[in-house]
């Protein structure tokens, strides 16, 4: 099952659903890397509200998405980590260092607005 990527202005939005396989995640990573360039996007929001489990493979892929997007000129924000999922992640020993997180899609977009604006002021 391909994870759809939506375009919203300068940003790309992808929602991870309940039962995604490792292959779906790898494909999302590749698709995002391509689309960030093709659409000259400045930011990526990955919404994980529907994800029932965030295991080490999922987290590693999200961190990779953040790194690859950064190298392609876009910021990444992860939104929608459920409380129980966040709790399990902490116990598992997983961290999302170096990647921004927000409560929901709205907050994720607000974070991107701040970061992308901040960066253009630096120039």
């Amino acid at each position, binding site marked *: 099952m391909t994870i759809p990527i939506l375009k919203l202005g300068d940003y790309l939005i992808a929602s991870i659903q309940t*039962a995604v396989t490792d292959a779906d995640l790898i494909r999302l990573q590749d698709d995002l890397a391509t689309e960030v360039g093709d659409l000259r996007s400045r930011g990526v929001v990955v919404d994980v509200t529907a994800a029932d489990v965030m*295991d*080490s*493979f999922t987290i*590693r892929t999200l961190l990779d998405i953040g790194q690859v997007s950064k190298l392609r000129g876009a910021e990444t924000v992860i939104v929608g980590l459920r409380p129980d999922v966040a*709790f*399990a992640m902490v116990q*598992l*020993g997983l961290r999302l260092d170096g990647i921004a997180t927000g409560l929901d899609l709205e907050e994720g977009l607000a974070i991107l607005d701040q970061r992308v604006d901040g960066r253009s002021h630096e120039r």
Partner: protein
Amino acid sequence: MSDEPGLRIGSEHDILTARQRGRALAEEAGFSGSDFTVLATAISEIARNIVQYADHGEIVFSLVERDASRGLVVVARDQGPGISDVDMAMQDGYSTGRSLGLGLPGARRLMDEFDIQSRPGEGTTVTMTKWVPAASMARAKR
């Protein structure tokens, strides 16, 4: 102790099936919402280890009662290459594969009991148990 038939683990899809099955049994055992996620995460990690390192194996779930508590036992077996240094494999950040190296030590932290037996060339068996917290048991009885 009621044993379920073993679930064959040989592909990515089987990882999803295993954690869904584990979640359903956790519900049956009387676990609460956040424990479903904790169990499903631990199952996901050990099922992925089977697919990644041993190619295939099986997971057997069973519900157990001990004293006044109920638990879910997850046994993951494979006849893969085995682990030459189990102590090393149980350390955070150690991985011979392309991963974060948190699978085994992470699963141990998520569960109440965790045992791993492995011999190079013979395979690996992980046995892990989570007990229904007393508060959830009291709620279920009411």
